[in-house]
């Protein structure tokens, strides 16, 4: 390119400063001790990592992974038809649907979560409706269950599934679907043999974008799950905000991130192998 390259140097500096420095700092903090009143003391130690051997933390971790996987799967099932609808609509309708999908981002996340709490409470809208209709005489327990957390997470992260899927499906030429139809494919075969494999990059991107933040989410589990459903995100929040044990929180967060990365890499590898054999 003949474009001058000098404006790119600050860009690289910013990139490194912003995106690597906090990571390095957290790594450093995870190897020192907790100060007496929170904060840190400069004594090198493995202690924070040794404490992670406690199966308690791994139970929380596994429960969080399960919930994140469920969130991701539900988002795929709900998001794919939605994304397909968007991609194959007229530009006008596409624009409208994108706006609709993005509406939640215009309101405070907290406010939206409280709307769900209001819906799911013992005296909330769902239970009131059930009671009024005579379908149940004592309140169904909805709020402060893993189900409530699941609903909240799907609600919060569905757009992250829909948007990359939409972008991927929009790139699939409609003539490919017609060619498949012409070659004796039923509607289901067109979907599994043509649309799904070609939407794969968007699907993988969507899964990563939903799985990672829903695994680390802390506000939704805190508000909708209550104290009963401790998640990895709420645990880290607890260490930082309540216990004020920064070094342990940092260690927890790093090990958790490394594990997620590992899981994802293995999954992406397997995906690749799977798609290749398809």
């Amino acid at each position, binding site marked *: 390119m003949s474009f001058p390259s000098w404006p790119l140097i600050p860009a690289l500096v910013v990139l490194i400063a912003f995106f690597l420095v906090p990571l390095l700092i957290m790594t450093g903090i995870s190897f020192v001790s907790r100060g007496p009143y929170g904060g840190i003391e400069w004594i090198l130690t493995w202690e924070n990592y040794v404490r992670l051997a406690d199966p308690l933390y791994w139970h929380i971790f596994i429960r969080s992974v399960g919930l994140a996987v469920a969130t991701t799967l539900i988002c795929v099932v709900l998001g794919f038809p939605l994304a397909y609808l968007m991609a194959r609509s007229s530009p006008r309708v596409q624009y409208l649907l994108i706006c609709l999908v993005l509406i939640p981002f215009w309101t405070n996340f907290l406010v939206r979560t409280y709307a769900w709490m209001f819906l799911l409470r013992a005296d909330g809208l769902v239970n009131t409706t059930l009671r009024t209709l005579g379908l149940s005489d004592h309140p169904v327990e909805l709020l402060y269950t893993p189900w409530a957390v699941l609903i909240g997470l799907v609600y919060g992260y569905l757009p992250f599934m829909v948007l990359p899927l939409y972008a991927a499906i929009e790139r699939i030429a409609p*003539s490919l679907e017609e*060619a498949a139809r*012409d*070659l004796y494919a039923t509607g289901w075969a067109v979907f599994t043999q043509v649309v799904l494999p070609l939407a794969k990059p968007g699907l993988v991107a969507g899964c990563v974008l939903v799985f990672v933040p829903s695994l680390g989410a802390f506000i939704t589990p805190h508000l909708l799950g209550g104290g009963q459903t401790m998640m990895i995100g709420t645990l880290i929040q607890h260490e930082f905000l309540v216990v004020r044990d920064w070094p342990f929180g940092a260690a927890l967060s790093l090990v958790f991130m490394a594990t997620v990365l590992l899981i994802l890499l293995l999954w992406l590898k397997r995906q690749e192998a799977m798609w290749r054999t398809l």
Partner: protein
Amino acid sequence: MESELVGSVRLDRVVKWHGPHCVLDAVSLEVKQGEFFSILGPSGSGKTTLLRIIAGFDRPNAGRVLIQEQPLDDLPPHQRPVNMVFQHYALFPHLSVWKNVAFGLERRRIARAEVIRRVTEALHMVRLETKGNRFPHELSGGEQQRVALARALVNRPQVLLLDEPLGALDQQLRQAMQGELKRIQEQVGITFICVTHHQEEALSMSDRVAVIDQGRVLQIGSPHELYESPASMAVAQFIGLSNCLHGEVVCTNGTLCTFQVPELGTFLVPKPHGRLPQGTATFMLRPERIRLLREPSSSHGENMLAATVQTVRYSGGELQYQIALSPHIVWTARLPIESKWYEPFHPGERLTVSWDTHEGLILAS
């Protein structure tokens, strides 16, 4: 055989509207068994819509499509005995050449051994035996075109539909593929219906051609008929180059009439077929029927007009002249260069245009 006289594909007054716009206006045509039939028209003439209606991707607003006299009506695309070669091939980018070709057979749950046999045969036919493991993006344009062809033919449809099959190829490859396509069609004996806007392609490959414009069929005939006896000026101008003059035709008895152009005087023309367009008519002459002479030399059965060379276009084996008969009338003449010693005319040179009286044609204005 009797069955060959039955139309393989018949369109019966097919009408298609896109909103307020009439794309196809009661189109009827009949394609014979085993024929290479082309539908030739400019972009927007409705020719692709016609193909999509036969394939089942679009529904006509009125009229019917019949294959072997069976109406297709509401059959979805995957249940019609036709296959299509798409304009930009529409090869599945995530599947190998082999998997692309096998796609249709696998969807119909054909036995594995049969799939292998037929895909091998199809790839052999398009001369891509060695490229089965490649992916579409690894192939050249011509190879992609042949994969698209194999993918459709492997299903042994009764009719093969081709949508601008050579449109994405460049000149040299396009000419080679014209021969290839014709060879394959003769080999498999399937009815081909080919949509194109490229007249040379239609003429060189087809048994018969339908010229359509603005949703109406202008003429159906063999390439030779269309070129030598176009039904109207529109057809003449769409098929090949044509020179024309507007004037008055006066016929007496005999095989020749007199054509009068105010600026140029009179000359003889053959008597038009059918009803005589008395009064104003159009005279048409093909550019390769023109002889250019340095000196006027009278010869029996020839017309002669004085003219001036405007431009000369050289294209290897041929020269194309623009010659002015009057300031407002410019004709094109194509002359093959039959010898390397040939001395071309120069722009500005005065010469005599001559042609056999029987080569002209009178069309209604």
